């Protein structure tokens, strides 16, 4: 060492490892318009596919005439279910154990359903040809209400054998899919029946849609010479897509290469397998040419991946002092025409049974009835982990309703029921083991930050002024304390189509001390190329700037289950750390040889192994990497590589405390977010800048959902919100500034203690916004009004409460 040697602090700084707000490496290409999204993929001779879609929500398909379409110059093929049937591809399995029509097989069950697939030389011709396909429909009775579906004589799914069990047990009616239960039903009912105080409410979480700015699409290229299929697409789980494509097509898995290029936002929309993917593959096999399929926005909103649509009937009981004694919930879940919900196989209602929230509730029961209707299939986790958003909204509304019933402050009610710090790991009444938490600290920090007592005083004065006729604006204080469950998940109980939900990382250290790491996940904007390199930098001592992260190519990346449900950091992030530790273990042996000491005489220091008690004797990771490739080291294989497949022992449980302060104009129904404070605890923080960005984005999606966004149907099953004219996405004008904050309670079972954050703000944000609306009207007796709280609905609420004189 000489005087020019960097200090320890400088070496740490240079790594840009854990905790660094490292700027994103992805941004160079994105800011210059050089991203590579699926619609940017262009291949010689590529054809374009487009769907003929059903204008009806329920109808028999009597005939399809493709003659006029085929006669149009430039049209290569028109596929219908009859063409797919010999290949057994006219139906496909869903992630939820049901099956779904790829192309209409005798009938259609929702508006926008895929009826025929036109393949043409360009997009314009394909769209023209869709208009020329003549389909003769016979309309059938339409059901868009799940409660009506369970009473109706109309059989929606004629393909299912009457009386036979479904994938999740007995079906009690021809439009019923499953009843899924958790917890102790009788014990819960007994507690509630004999409780001092009971609050009961129907909480509806409306149907909405993830609506990433890039729609879904794929390009299939069947190389008949080599027997290889290459498939580019908007896949949040490319490896699973490869397996499914192999099982469905019969092409051996080594002959299929799936590539997720840059993805323009996912939010759950790109988890499922859609008819467009299947049809592009079949069309490429049939024509021998590459075939591209790209949804338009209306296709996207009508046909792929709705979210929510849960009717949650709740009962919560407490002592007079406000200690919660029991929680009962029955959900009527509208799954649409096919049960295509994207959940781990054994969880048909996802992780909805996290619905005891942040509270120590001794006994609870949940029952979920899945129901078929004439709506689009989907049921994806829109920026949440498998129905966790529904659960958080449910419990946070029930707490507010209970607070009204008790005539108690809702912040205080939460405080006296929080799971205490010393109760972790905490066994919930519905079967989860919460890994870690410190809810009281987070709550106090949040309430102090917004001057909660001052806000309540101001609100009281506002109500008084309103009653005196001095103002027409009310003040709402929306509180939320949420607990998420993310990082699915342990292979023992979590799988997708039989594939255990582990994830993976493979690292290669190059001779000159830089590295490439490949993961089984795929970023859709989360910045994996930036943050996973930071994990590795801290584990291996190689600066993040010298590490390339690659994902999404199944020919090169190790198998993984993909990115959704905030699972990348909890699962693939853990695999990355573990693979990094394997690198370090081998590096230690090499360093010991080079320094002529025993392994045990070395200790790790930032980016090097140092001889204990002799700090001037060390080998840096760069020196060790070089030695791994140019020296024969006895008992050690050449090279420096590692792979880790990580099966998490438990989920992680991020939490947060949010406060939304909202002004509401009683006469116009307009709202203004005056303040939004978001405290998130996602365990160890990898990149604070990226975390803050995730929180801003998730809160804005929550704002959209709570305040205006919905997939609405009329009674005939027509989608009323099929374009961005009707489907609300907030602009910069409607979106407030947010204040972010944090506490840091590491996960005890994760190698670096990280829990995941991408979805927290959506899970916590929706109840915070909605509770603010309800809270504004609390003084006038409002218990529950359904989202989305658009201007009209807020005006109507005020009107129903008699506030318009």
């Amino acid at each position: 060492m000489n005087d020019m040697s960097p200090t320890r602090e400088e070496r740490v700084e240079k790594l840009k490892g854990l905790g660094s707000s490292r700027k994103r490496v992805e941004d160079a290409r994105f800011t210059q318009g050089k991203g590579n999204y699926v619609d940017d993929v262009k291949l010689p001779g590529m054809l374009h596919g487009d769907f003929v879609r059903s204008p009806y929500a329920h109808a028999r398909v009597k005939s399809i005439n493709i003659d006029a379409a085929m006669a149009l110059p430039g049209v290569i093929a028109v596929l219908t279910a009859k063409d797919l049937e010999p290949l057994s591809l006219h139906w496909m399995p869903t992630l939820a154990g049901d099956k779904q029509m790829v192309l209409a097989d005798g009938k259609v069950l929702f508006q926008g359903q895929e009826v025929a697939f036109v393949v043409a030389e360009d997009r314009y011709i394909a769209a023209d040809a869709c208009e020329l396909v003549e389909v003769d429909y016979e309309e059938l009775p339409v059901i868009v209400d799940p409660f009506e579906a369970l009473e109706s004589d109309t059989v929606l799914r004629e393909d299912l054998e009457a009386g036979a069990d479904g994938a999740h047990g007995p079906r009690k009616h021809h439009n019923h899919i499953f009843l899924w239960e958790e917890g102790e039903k009788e014990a819960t009912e007994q507690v509630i029946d004999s409780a001092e105080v009971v609050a009961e409410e129907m909480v509806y979480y409306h149907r909405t849609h993830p609506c990433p700015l890039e729609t879904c699409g794929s390009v299939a290229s069947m190389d008949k010479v080599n027997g290889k299929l290459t498939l580019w697409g908007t896949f949040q789980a490319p490896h699973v897509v490869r397996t499914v494509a192999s099982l469905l097509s019969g092409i051996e898995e080594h002959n299929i290469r799936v590539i997720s290029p840059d993805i323009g936002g996912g939010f759950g929309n790109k988890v499922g397998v859609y008819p467009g993917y299947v049809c592009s593959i079949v069309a490429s096999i049939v024509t021998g040419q590459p075939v591209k399929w790209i949804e338009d926005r209306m296709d996207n909103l009508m046909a792929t991946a709705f979210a929510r649509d849960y009717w949650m009937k709740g009962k919560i009981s407490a002592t007079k002092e406000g200690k919660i004694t029991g929680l009962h919930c029955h959900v009527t879940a509208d799954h649409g025409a096919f049960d295509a919900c994207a959940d781990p196989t054994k969880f048909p209602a996802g992780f909805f049974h996290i619905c005891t929230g942040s509270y120590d509730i001794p006994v609870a029961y949940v029952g979920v009835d899945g129901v078929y209707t004439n709506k689009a299939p989907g049921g994806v986790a829109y920026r949440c982990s498998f129905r966790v958003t529904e659960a958080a909204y449910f419990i946070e509304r029930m707490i507010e309703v209970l607070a009204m019933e008790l005539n108690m402050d809702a912040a205080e009610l939460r405080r006296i029921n929080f799971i205490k710090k010393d109760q972790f790991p905490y066994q919930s009444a519905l079967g989860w083991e919460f890994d870690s938490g410190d809810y009281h600290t987070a709550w106090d920090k949040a309430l102090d930050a917004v001057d909660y007592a001052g806000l309540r005083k101001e609100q009281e004065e506002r109500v008084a002024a309103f009653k005196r006729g001095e103002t027409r604006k009310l003040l709402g204080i929306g509180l939320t304390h949420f607990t998420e469950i993310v990082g699915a998940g342990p292979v023992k109980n979590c799988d997708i189509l039989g594939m255990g939900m582990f994830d993976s990382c493979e690292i290669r250290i190059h001779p000159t001390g830089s590295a490439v790491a490949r993961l089984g996940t795929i970023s859709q904007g989360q910045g994996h190329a930036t943050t996973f390199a930071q994990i590795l930098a801290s584990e291996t001592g190689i600066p993040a700037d010298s590490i390339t992260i690659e994902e999404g190519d199944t020919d090169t990346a190790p198998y993984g289950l993909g990115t959704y449900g905030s699972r990348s950091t909890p699962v693939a992030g853990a695999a990355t750390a573990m693979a990094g530790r394997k690198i370090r273990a081998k590096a230690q042996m090499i360093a010991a040889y080079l320094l002529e000491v025993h392994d045990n005489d070395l200790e790790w220091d930032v980016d090097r192994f140092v001889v204990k008690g002799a700090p001037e004797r060390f080998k840096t990771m760069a020196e060790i990497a070089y030695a791994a490739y140019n020296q024969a080291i006895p008992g050690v294989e050449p090279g420096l590589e590692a792979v880790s497949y990580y099966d998490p022992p438990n989920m992680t449980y991020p939490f947060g405390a949010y406060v939304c302060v909202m002004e509401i104009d009683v006469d116009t129904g307009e709202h203004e977010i005056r303040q939004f404070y978001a405290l998130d605890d996602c365990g160890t923080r990898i990149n604070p800048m990226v975390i803050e960005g995730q929180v801003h984005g998730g809160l804005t999606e929550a704002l959209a959902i709570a305040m205006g966004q919905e997939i609405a149907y009329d009674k005939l099953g027509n989608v009323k919100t099929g374009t961005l004219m009707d489907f609300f996405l907030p602009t910069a004008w409607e979106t407030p500034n947010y204040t972010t904050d944090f506490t840091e309670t590491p996960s005890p079972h994760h190698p670096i203690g990280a829990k995941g954050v991408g979805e927290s703000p959506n899970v916590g944000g929706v109840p915070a916004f909605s509770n603010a609306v309800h809270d504004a009207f609390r003084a006038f007796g409002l218990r529950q009004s359904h989202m989305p709280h658009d201007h009209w609905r807020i005006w109507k609420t005020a009107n129903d409460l008699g506030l318009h004189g």
Partner: protein
Amino acid sequence: MSKMHIKLTVNGKEEELLAEPRELLIYVLRERLNLTGPHVGCETSHCGACTVEMNGKSVKSCTVLAAQANGAEITTIEGLGTPDELHVLQKMFKEHHGLQCGYCTPGMITRAHRLLQENPNPSEEEVRFGMAGNLCRCTGYQNIVKSIMAAAAEMNSAKEAAE
């Protein structure tokens, strides 16, 4: 369908091509000229992912016919900055984490570029209003606004230094 002869100046380069009268400008840019920076997000003018500059104005190229653009000067994201010398907006979007998935970013930066031509010293409110034709699903806009404000400040101080 018979094709039209169309001349455009795109990012300073003269282009001549044949296009059907119904072809949209975004299609011509992406498919015929291989400028895939501008994206399609909605086809209805709402999202702004396809934003380009046409004769000094921001337009949504998904609802402009190529025929309407005949003779026009077009600037796309590919015309702002170079890999060796990024435009200050490109630098500031990176510096302030003004993007995530990147899909809206080319339209967003192209629109911000025009906004700052129209109003070199905007207030936060003016930025939010001036950017309201461009949707982002990832960032919640806070850092986009920050990026644009920072770019304006830097452009103004560079201008002052030059004067």
